[in-house]
């Protein structure tokens, strides 16, 4: 069977049109290069990115990175191996390199054992999606950013340009996903470690939206000029803003929702399978409809619109890669090989954002958390720091910024027995992460009001 999904897109950027044609040429060449009984898959990641780094309201480093990485996998029977190689952008050279990689893998296969967990799609499902429009030249954006900063101590990072993913296999499947986006991730500093962190990311640039966000950051920056307060270790009522919840989600990304980690009892959420639970208001899913991630993964499996993970506080599912599906007899659901969420979404609650200070009344308003890790993975006990704009609130009013504090508490308490409310409108945050390449991941999260949170240092 063949399903064709033409996503809602915009006019194809000329650069990306050329990229798609080049990938098609590589896919055709790989098919022609196969010997009897062989199959292939090919996964492409590419980007043409402008990067501008800013410190103290001036440009620290600026440049452009153009890169394409092709992962060619050769399969013969139950044996397979893959070669990930950099492409040059010259189609002729790249076709030759891909075919050469295939030949190298052919010589490797006799040395390898059969793989009992190999799983490939049994149907062809094509797709093509393009998102985003032409963005203003990055040099102009930086001029506007520096202007909007009004001489403040601005430190941050602007990344923009097209990012693309593609899949092909010997059965003729073709998937294409391209996003032209920008991500401006910045802080305005008062002094030392006191700053307001902000983000403006999306598919269409807007000077007005930048100014609105910068004005809001300036307003909050003024609060940081008050004398900071150092709190003693103890338990405090706290509002965990969506941007702070993002750090919690980032930690959980590494294995907590993984089908393999749950099956081997290594997930931090394993106790959800043994009677532990979150509050009934906690519902989490992998929601591809909310983000910018492709609707296919690197083995060519398509992804459902939504994968339930936590429903009303209880474990409802996990991210299952094809390999894990075969190993543990589970149903694959389009997860990547690391079984890490790419579009994690948590449902909102009833607390209106405008009512947060009043609902908090007396406690910590945590704008950002930082450097989370497990202090007891079995108990899903997390530790981490407050960072950037975190304030002490009394009578529903901000009193003073707070010097950094270490928390150490179980997520089962924070989002369980101690959960007071979730904010009404979850916030979509496109990932600014750029390790190796720019990500197409996002989270959509509400803030959480908790009756107490344990701070230890």
């Amino acid at each position: 069977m063949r399903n064709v999904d033409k996503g809602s897109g915009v006019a194809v950027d000329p650069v990306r049109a050329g990229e798609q044609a080049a990938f098609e040429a590589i896919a055709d060449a790989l098919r022609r290069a196969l010997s009897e009984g062989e199959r292939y898959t090919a996964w492409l990641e590419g980007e043409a990115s402008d990067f501008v780094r800013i410190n103290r309201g001036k440009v620290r480093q600026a440049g452009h990175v153009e890169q394409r990485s092709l992962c060619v996998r050769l399969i013969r029977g139950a044996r397979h191996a893959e070669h990930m190689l950099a492409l040059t952008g010259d189609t002729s050279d790249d076709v030759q390199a891909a075919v050469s990689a295939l030949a190298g893998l052919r010589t490797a296969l006799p040395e390898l054992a059969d793989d009992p967990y190999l799983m490939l799609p049994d149907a062809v499902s094509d797709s093509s999606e393009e998102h985003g429009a032409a963005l203003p030249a990055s040099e102009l954006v930086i001029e506007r950013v520096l202007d909007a900063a009004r001489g403040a101590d601005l430190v941050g990072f602007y990344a923009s340009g097209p990012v693309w993913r593609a899949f092909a296999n010997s059965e003729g499947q073709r998937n294409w996903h391209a996003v032209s986006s920008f991500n401006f991730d910045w802080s305005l500093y008062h002094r030392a470690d006191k700053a307001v962190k902000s983000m403006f990311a999306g598919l269409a640039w807007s000077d007005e939206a930048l100014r609105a966000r910068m004005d809001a950051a300036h307003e909050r920056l003024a609060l940081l000029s008050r004398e900071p307060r150092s709190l003693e270790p103890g338990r405090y009522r706290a509002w965990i803003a969506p941007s702070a919840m993002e750090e919690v989600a980032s930690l959980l990304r590494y294995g907590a929702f993984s089908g393999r980690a749950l099956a081997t009892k290594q997930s931090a959420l394993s106790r959800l399978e043994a009677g532990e639970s979150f509050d009934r208001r906690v519902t989490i899913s992998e929601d591809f409809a909310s983000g910018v991630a492709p609707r296919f993964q690197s083995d060519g499996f398509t992804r459902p619109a939504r994968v339930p993970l936590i429903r009303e506080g209880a474990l409802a599912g996990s991210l299952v890669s094809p390999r894990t599906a075969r190993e543990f007899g589970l149903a694959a659901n389009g997860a990547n090989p690391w079984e890490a969420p790419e579009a994690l979404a948590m449902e909102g609650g009833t607390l209106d954002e405008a009512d947060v200070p009043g609902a908090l009344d007396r406690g910590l308003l945590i704008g950002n958390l930082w450097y989370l890790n497990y202090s007891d993975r079995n108990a899903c006990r997390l530790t981490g720091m407050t960072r950037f704009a975190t304030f002490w609130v009394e009578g529903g009013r901000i009193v003073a910024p707070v010097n950094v504090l270490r928390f150490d508490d179980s997520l089962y308490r924070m989002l369980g027995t101690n959960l007071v409310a979730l904010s009404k409108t979850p916030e979509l945050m496109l990932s600014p992460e750029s390790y190796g390449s720019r990500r197409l991941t996002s989270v959509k999260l509400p803030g959480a009001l908790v009756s107490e949170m344990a701070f230890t240092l």
Partner: protein
Amino acid sequence: MPFEGPLPPLDLAADFWSLRFVDETAEHYVVRKNVAQPLVVTSNRGVMATVYADGGLGYAATSDTSPAGLRAALERARDWARATAAHGLVDSRTLPRSAETGRYASPSFDAPLRSRREWYELLADESCSMAVDARIVDWECAIEVRVATHRWVSSAGGDVVQRFRFVMAGASATAHADGETQTRTLNGHRSICQQGADEILDRFGFAGAGRRVADEALELLLAPDCPSGTMDVLLAPDQMILQIHESIGHPLELDRILGDERNFAGTSFVTPDMFGSYRYGSELLNVTFDPGEPAELASYGWDDEGTPARKAYLIRNGILERGLGGAVSQARSGLPGVANARADGWNRPPIDRMANLNLEAGDAGFDALVGAIEHGVYMETNSSWSIDDSRNKFQFGCERARVIENGELRHVVKNPNYRGISADFWRSLALVGDDSTRQVLGTPYCGKGEPSQIIRCGHASPACVFRNVDVFGGDRA
């Protein structure tokens, strides 16, 4: 790929330019639960052009290394330099322009390695030895062999070629029973990582280690929780490297001190006025940047700005002497630094990174270290790390610990954690182990920078004793 010989003519109207070619290939071998995982080969080639023009600084990276590709990258980098010169934080006309030439190669660079089949056989043997009990629910052995050639060429006549071969190995076993899961590894996640050949695995006793790793995972299942309280701790080298990395290495990076990382990796509690006088630790604390340590993961001859790399004391007898900053950061700050401007590949610009950051050995043997503790714990192998963005308030966890009472090692405990403040912690350093307790380890996974980079860092350390540390175990609620 132009790694040897002259480059094509590259006339560019600019004050200075450099090209940094990177060619890295790797093979990843993994056996998990006695099943060989599919072979993964990676090859990554490209070039980074850096240009100083009109006082600005720009870069452009491409994997098109043809003459036309090089010219286009240089022109694009120059355009960025010009476009941002008016807003530049650094006047590139004030920066040094290296004309260094030379060659570097990893030890045993040309020595033969095992074949693919032999790597898989070694891993299969270890994997089989780990399947000792039904409570071992997951286990894995892995080897990565990576070969890299870096060439740095500058318009000032610089030309440096460096060839590296890295071998990185790991083994882990996860045990589970009665709602409890414990994981034990061989020196941590890929902490066994050096330059060289097969001898690297011999140094760590990789062959034959699988059974011990699995046994210790099972042992942890039955162990009581680590005691809580203020007590002395003896840290093994595979925890010391994390302690050094997070609470000495990062805070001493000059680009953090200059503020570049404040939006992402963070700032530093260290300020410029501290260099030369600040007491970072006790008299026993001696920390060096040492790119010449044979086989250590981040040994090299020149950094990625063409600065020759030499050993230097960062902290001597507890006093802070210099920071971790390359030529650009030194020029910006006026502070002493080292040759550590490094990029994790052709597609990222150099920034200040740790390389080999080592704690110099003392004179206490292991028995003397244990014997000096009346009440405390001996912690091994990092498993959790968290530290504030100024690199001060930290909390670290280990895989395994043993209680020490009256100078003797006692029973094993699980979930050991400790916390402290960098500025105080190193002053509680009471004993430093001798060479017999020292290990040369590292991490291939140090993250930092915008755009972000993951780079290789080497760390060598003996075991060390710290007094009056806040220690605690797992969750009791």
